[in-house]
């Protein structure tokens, strides 16, 4: 890697950090708008004015917003995620196991969907214009155009209601065997895979088609190269960067999809935790969950961008 590329990558990382700062400010500002006095909510309607004022001082609620923002940010950076309002537990303890089960779900989905999506995307691009390509394209447009909950409810209807192969709801904490694990994970994973595979297939197909339209592909054809050689030696090495970029970007859709999927399947992940926190107006918990999501999202799109930079052969 030469200096120029290193500069580009470092530049991209700095942008990511700045973005994270802006994002955290936005998250903080949004949750600041939550109606009602937190101290009042915590102490209940019966609390005396003195008690509320005392708690406000203790929680530094009377400080200017910018000071509280700085304090919160410093806390996050040092690993102090704060305390939940709802049940006074450290947020780190609440989030830990939930985060793990969400990661399991995401990992299972990625393992399942990435190979399938890459295969379908690349073959559709190579067989552009054929019936196969048109079917794949139509199906992916269909899946992208419907809400995630429709994919989820359809999956339940098909696999749980009509075929009765799988249970409709997931309880990841009651898993004792591999078979059970499969049954518990199956429905959320199928739903999520459908949603992100559709994105990935579209992006992969577009990336490969763009490469196939270049003059050096025509040149390879005019050298007498076979279709197989053209794809493997000329198209794919050049499409690799855009494809990996597409994978990283598609995986970031997991974050949006997971909110709906964990809710509908009652899956005890971090998204479900956050939706519940919104219901109980648990401010610190909402903030922290949001930051976890934004961090994950930012991480994925930054990785995607860096891969795009590194994969440009002109920069080698």
């Amino acid at each position, binding site marked *: 890697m030469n200096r120029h590329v290193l500069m580009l990558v470092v530049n991209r990382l700095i942008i990511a950090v700045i973005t994270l700062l802006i994002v955290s400010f936005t998250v903080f500002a949004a949750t600041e708008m939550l109606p009602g006095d937190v101290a009042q909510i915590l102490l209940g309607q019966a609390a005396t004015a003195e008690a509320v004022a005392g708690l406000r001082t203790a929680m530094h609620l009377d400080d200017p917003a910018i000071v509280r923002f700085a304090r919160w940010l410093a806390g996050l950076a040092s690993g102090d995620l704060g305390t939940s309002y709802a049940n006074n537990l450290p947020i780190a303890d609440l989030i830990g196991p939930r985060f793990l089960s969400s990661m399991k779900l995401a990992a299972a989905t990625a393992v399942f969907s990435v190979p399938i999506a890459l295969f379908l995307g690349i073959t559709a691009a190579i067989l552009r214009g054929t019936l196969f390509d048109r079917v794949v394209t139509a199906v992916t447009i269909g899946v992208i*155009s419907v*809400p995630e909950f*429709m994919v989820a*409810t*359809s999956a339940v209807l098909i696999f749980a209601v009509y075929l009765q192969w799988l249970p409709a709801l997931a309880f990841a904490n009651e898993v004792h065997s591999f078979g059970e694990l499969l049954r518990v994970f199956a429905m959320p994973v199928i739903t999520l895979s459908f949603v992100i595979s559709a994105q990935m297939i579209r992006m992969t197909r577009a990336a490969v088609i763009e490469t196939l339209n270049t003059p050096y592909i025509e040149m390879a054809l005019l050298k007498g190269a076979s279709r197989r050689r053209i794809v493997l030696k000329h198209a794919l090495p050049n499409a690799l960067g855009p494809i990996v970029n597409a994978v990283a970007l598609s995986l970031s859709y997991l*974050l949006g999809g997971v909110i709906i999927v964990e809710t509908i399947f009652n899956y005890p992940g971090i998204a479900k935790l956050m939706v519940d926190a919104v219901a109980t107006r648990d401010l610190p918990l909402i903030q922290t969950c*949001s930051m976890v999501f934004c961090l994950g999202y930012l991480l994925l799109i930054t990785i995607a961008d860096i891969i795009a930079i590194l994969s440009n052969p002109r920069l080698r």
Partner: protein
Amino acid sequence: MARFALSPRRLGYRFNAVGMIGLSVIVFWATVAVFAPLLIPYPIGDIVDYDYFGPMSAQFLLGTDYLGRDMLSRILMGARYTVGISLAAVALACFSGVALGMSAAVAGGWFDAILSRFLDALNSIPSKLFGLVVVAAVGSSMPVLVLTLAVIYTPGSYRFARALAVNINSMDFVTVARARGEKTLYLIGSEILPNILGPVLADLGLRFVFIVLLLSGLSFLGLGVQPPNADWGALVRENIGGLPFGAPAVMVPSLAIASLTISVNMLIDNLPVKIRDRSNG
């Protein structure tokens, strides 16, 4: 219908069947949204059936919901919320996105840099999460929903319009106008806007689909349109209990959403093409 199908060609446009089907479905739902109160067979709040999650029947074409209300009426009225809110939000998002995008492209410099960085950061918040936090923070009402959805999709529209405008801005005809001494407002309105209008409209359609999906998702989480009103997403939420029975009340609102969003996609991918046949003349 035949007349309609022929007329684009007479105007020098080619419009294929898939695009026309898409357009018809969109027009259908738009009409439903406007005239819903005149079309519904039963008042939407009335419990008209003793049975809940009733099947499709001659009396209740789309069955009944979890309280025994007529689904058809609720779907027709739901169109108003889904189409209306999404349309308002997409109009707002695209207007601000395109206006800002063109200004940034023409002005350049620090204005462009700061605006781009800020909106990119806004774009780095997953849309559902953003909706979740904001709606939870300020409560859900129609104006809040429209504004939130608009804010979420403004950065994307900005990015798209800016990229197009930057391309046009580097064209020689804009340079000629600059060298002539034209002011920024003329450059934006007269040289750039007419040339990005087509793609911007297609992008508006695509963004409309995203907004419909996000609105439905929020309503499904209980953060969108609030009872007693219900858009299509909220209808799914209300009736999710009917899922184990395969009740039509669960799937029909989803199908309504899908029919709308897929039609918009079909239309965008098959827009009327101006026939440019240079060999003819």
